[in-house]
């Protein structure tokens, strides 16, 4: 295999991979910490290093709207945003998925204002959980890169036709230099053939897109979306196997880490898993039976895989960078809700961690595990609150 290992900033790795996916139309609006991705892409267009067109829109709302048009006209499309930009896209997110347009977008994860914060958490993408988009979360920059062609292939499958967002933690991944293997163009071409949609805006075959549905038919449209998302579960597995054959790297909807004999299973998504792995290694040295279940695909939701991974645990701990205000974290709620009807149900507790970019250290994770072991953890709590300023 001719893949070359390079030391790249995460944003650059994303931009290079987007180029290798032979995207036709890019449309994006700058916002920290997503800016390097779109600047890199704009430079590639300016240098003639890609055939893609870059639409210099006046807002995120128009960025995604332009892709709705471009995708309906048969183009492979790409955008990237974060936080406030994603919130501004809210209406278009549902529209794109409802029209079954396989747009792919990198969502750089950043907290939402107020208070204004440019730093990382995952409140933005978790808040659009129900928008009908596939959501994939990367732990490191090899994953941010690899998940893009996988996302295109799943999204564009004729049985799926759902938009997909590849989520990467702001700054932690976007601005970090890591060794990344950018896939060779010929291999990407082999893995990801050009987009050939069945239905396009074409005067030779005039079709109506985006008609309105009265109560006699609306639910069936929604059901079909739901059904496609369920099918995306197996499609992801299938596509990941093809990816492994071509590129040699293995992916699944979840990744298990030292979980076989684990009594305590930690669950999370994104770059924090790297720190958690280091913490688990240290805990294991001290004889603690701790393991990790990393969620890569939040939608489709890998319920069965989570169940298999946690059913024999003594306790499950969900760590996440979001909160449904007044309730608990979104991932925690999702996991508890499908586990409720199962026979083997270990206790599940959850922590909101690292909101607004608060650092989460190996020590924090070890402390949290020991708190859970002492049975002192609440059902849900915020980690490392500075109580003295409250």
């Amino acid at each position, binding site marked *: 295999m001719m893949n070359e290992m390079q030391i790249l900033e995460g944003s650059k790795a994303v931009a290079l991979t987007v180029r290798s996916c032979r995207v036709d139309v890019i449309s994006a609006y700058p916002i920290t910490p997503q800016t390097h991705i779109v600047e890199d892409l704009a430079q590639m267009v300016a240098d003639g290093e890609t055939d*893609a067109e870059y639409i210099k829109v006046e807002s995120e709302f128009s960025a995604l709207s332009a892709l709705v048009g471009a995708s309906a006209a048969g183009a492979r499309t790409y955008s990237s945003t974060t936080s406030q930009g994603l919130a501004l896209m809210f209406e278009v997110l549902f529209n794109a998925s409802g029209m079954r347009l396989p747009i792919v977008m990198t969502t750089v994860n950043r907290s939402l204002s107020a208070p204004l914060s440019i730093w990382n958490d995952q409140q933005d993408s978790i808040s659009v959980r129900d928008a009908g988009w596939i959501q994939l979360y990367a732990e490191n920059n090899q994953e941010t890169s690899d998940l893009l062609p996988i996302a295109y292939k799943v999204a564009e499958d004729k049985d799926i036709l759902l938009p997909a967002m590849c989520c990467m933690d702001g700054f932690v991944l976007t601005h970090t230099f890591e060794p990344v293997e950018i896939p060779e163009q010929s291999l990407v071409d082999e893995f990801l053939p050009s987009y050939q949609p069945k239905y396009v805006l074409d005067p030779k075959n005039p079709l109506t897109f*985006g*008609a309105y549905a009265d109560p006699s038919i609306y639910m069936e449209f929604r059901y079909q979306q739901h059904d496609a998302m369920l099918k995306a579960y197996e499609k992801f597995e299938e596509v990941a196997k093809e990816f492994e054959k071509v590129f040699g790297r293995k992916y699944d909807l979840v990744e298990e880490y030292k979980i076989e004999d684990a009594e305590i299973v930690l669950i999370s998504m994104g770059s924090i898993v790297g720190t958690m792995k280091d913490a688990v290694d240290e805990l294991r040295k001290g004889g603690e039976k701790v393991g990790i279940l990393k969620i890569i695909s939040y939608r489709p939701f890998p319920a069965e895989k989570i169940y298999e991974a946690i059913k024999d645990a003594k306790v499950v701990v969900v760590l996440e960078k979001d909160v449904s205000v007044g309730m608990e974290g979104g991932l925690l709620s999702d996991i508890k809700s499908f586990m409720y009807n199962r026979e083997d149900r270990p206790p599940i507790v959850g922590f909101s961690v690292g909101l607004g970019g608060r650092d989460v250290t190996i020590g924090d994770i070890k402390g949290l595990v020991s708190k859970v072991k002492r049975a002192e953890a609440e059902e849900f709590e915020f980690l490392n609150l500075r109580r003295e300023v409250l």
Partner: protein
Amino acid sequence: MSLFAQGHTACGGCGMPIAVKLVLGGSGENSIVVSPTGCLEVTSTRYPQSAWGVPWIHSLFENAAAVASGIETALKVKGKKANVLVIGGDGATVDIGIRALSGMFERGHNVTYVCYDNEAYMNTGVQRSGSTPYGASATTSPAGKLSFGEDKPKKDTPAIAAAHGIPYVATASVGYPKDIVKKVKKAQEIVGPKYIQILAPCPTGWRFDGSKTIKLAKLAVETALFPVYEIENGEITKVKKIKERKPVEEYLKLQGRFKHLFKENKDQIEVIQKMADANAEKFGLDG
């Protein structure tokens, strides 16, 4: 196949489908149309039916110009050629969609944006828009004990469009069908963003008898309340002259939305007449 078929559900006498057919008459089969949410979308595309004989897409209320930008760009990348048009209401154009419209103009997309101007949000029940004329009673600018209706003049959207330096801006009225076809044809020959605003009377919202649509569409022009002109590369190049300008009352008195002016607010009719006079002066309409 007809490009815009009978059987749509617009009210009898609606000016909007007249405008749509004329626009498509000018742009022809090789067109792709984007429409925002509004009366046109709702009366022409109730699933699984569609009145459209050209490819058509509706996304949202405020993003038609951006969707059209994306379509035009995709066609360019794919090496395909078609006339990309937006046909949308005044609310979608001059209010909620103006950001996307401004972006489309500024980026120079080769799109013809047609606004059918019925001077209010008709689809949701005749609420005022930025395009609602001074003195009209709409459901969110109603005439009342302390109100003579809309108290701000109609937004000058063609001037806003022209200020972007786009090559072609025009106004038209369904009272003059050939003029619409001619202007759309002309627009298609010009590369870049084009903006055409067409007055399309709404019997339901303006409260007049559906048989008088064309008469009102002409009167709006003949009173100089809706001047018809072309702006090419920033210069006014053509205006529709009025032989004998009619007093605004003749137009206002036929419509329920202005009825209150003839009771307590007669002085407002004079204000409206002055606006018409100013239009005539500005565009040199008389003669």
